[in-house]
């Protein structure tokens, strides 16, 4: 069931293009876009969290809301580039436990962006520290995905060629 879904997914045009196109605009620049999105979303959010922790006290907290559209731009860049990267190597992602950990961490990080801005929120310092820790963990999980996968593609999965 999973294998037949993955076989179909890896035969779609987007998937083949991501894996096999020699163009720099395929895998390489989509991967680079994923890093720019990370910088916009997590980077600007970390700047906001530093403000909540007491850095730049003369800047009103609300001033950081002006930068929210860029953070959402970063999120959408990463949803789009993430879907393309996933389409290229879906077996690699879905058979690695760490991939689900990363998705969970992204969900927590994004949720904290809005939760922390609610007027009723409590313990903003604690939430700010949690948020920064969450982004650092997301980044580490993302990097380690390249080193911890078990099956590169569906053929590996079907033939049982598992990496340690």
């Amino acid at each position, binding site marked *: 069931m999973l294998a037949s879904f993955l076989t179909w997914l890896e035969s779609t045009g987007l998937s083949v293009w991501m894996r096999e196109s020699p163009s720099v605009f395929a895998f*390489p620049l989509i991967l680079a876009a994923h*890093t720019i999105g990370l910088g916009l979303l997590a980077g600007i959010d970390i700047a906001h969290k530093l403000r909540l922790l007491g850095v730049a006290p003369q800047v009103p907290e609300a001033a950081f809301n002006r930068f929210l559209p860029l953070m959402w731009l970063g999120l959408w860049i990463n949803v789009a580039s993430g879907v393309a990267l996933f389409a290229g190597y879906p077996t690699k992602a879905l058979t690695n436990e760490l991939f689900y950990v990363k998705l969970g961490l992204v969900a927590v990080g994004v949720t904290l962006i809005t939760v922390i801005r609610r007027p009723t929120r409590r313990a903003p310092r604690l939430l700010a520290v949690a948020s920064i820790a969450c982004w650092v963990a997301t980044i580490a999980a993302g990097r380690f995905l390249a080193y911890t996968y078990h099956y590169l593609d569906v053929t590996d999965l079907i033939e049982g060629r598992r990496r340690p």
Partner: protein
Amino acid sequence: MGEWQYWVEQLLLRGEYAAAIMRTAWGWPTVESVHFAGLTLLFGSIAVWDLRLMGMASHVPIVEFHRLVPFSVLGFAINAASGSMFLMTEPDQYIYNPAFHFKLLFLTLAGVNIVVFYALFFRRVRALGSGDRGPAALKIIGAVSIVCWAAVIICGRLITFYRPTGCPPGEPLAFLVTCIIR
């Protein structure tokens, strides 16, 4: 150019302690994670500063946002240190890599831009209150900065696709044809 690069390569190879750490089981990915966390800290804090220079959140005096700049410096320091560890472990993968050359070029441009800002504009910026319009050149400085740092990230991410084995180093035309246009 070739001899010079060889000299730098030999110099970097003396960092054997760094290389020993990098070659432990999870050394390389761990330092990569630190490098990416550093780039996020650097890019996020500098982006907010650059966007303020470009006119966003203009009701807040520019100088108040300057408190974020030490965190950009911290991010840069983290990445200079972690980046050196990659270089000391596999120098030939960077010294002869055109993507790395472009990364250094954009780093230099970002640095020159910073020097221009502090040398020519910082004193005036400090005197600006909320709502004051600074010199128009501030918008250009902010835009150049954010574009350069984004280019540094993009070139850094492309390093792995331009390993010197696949692309002819030191031959710009051949490099363009084989590696960029393809």
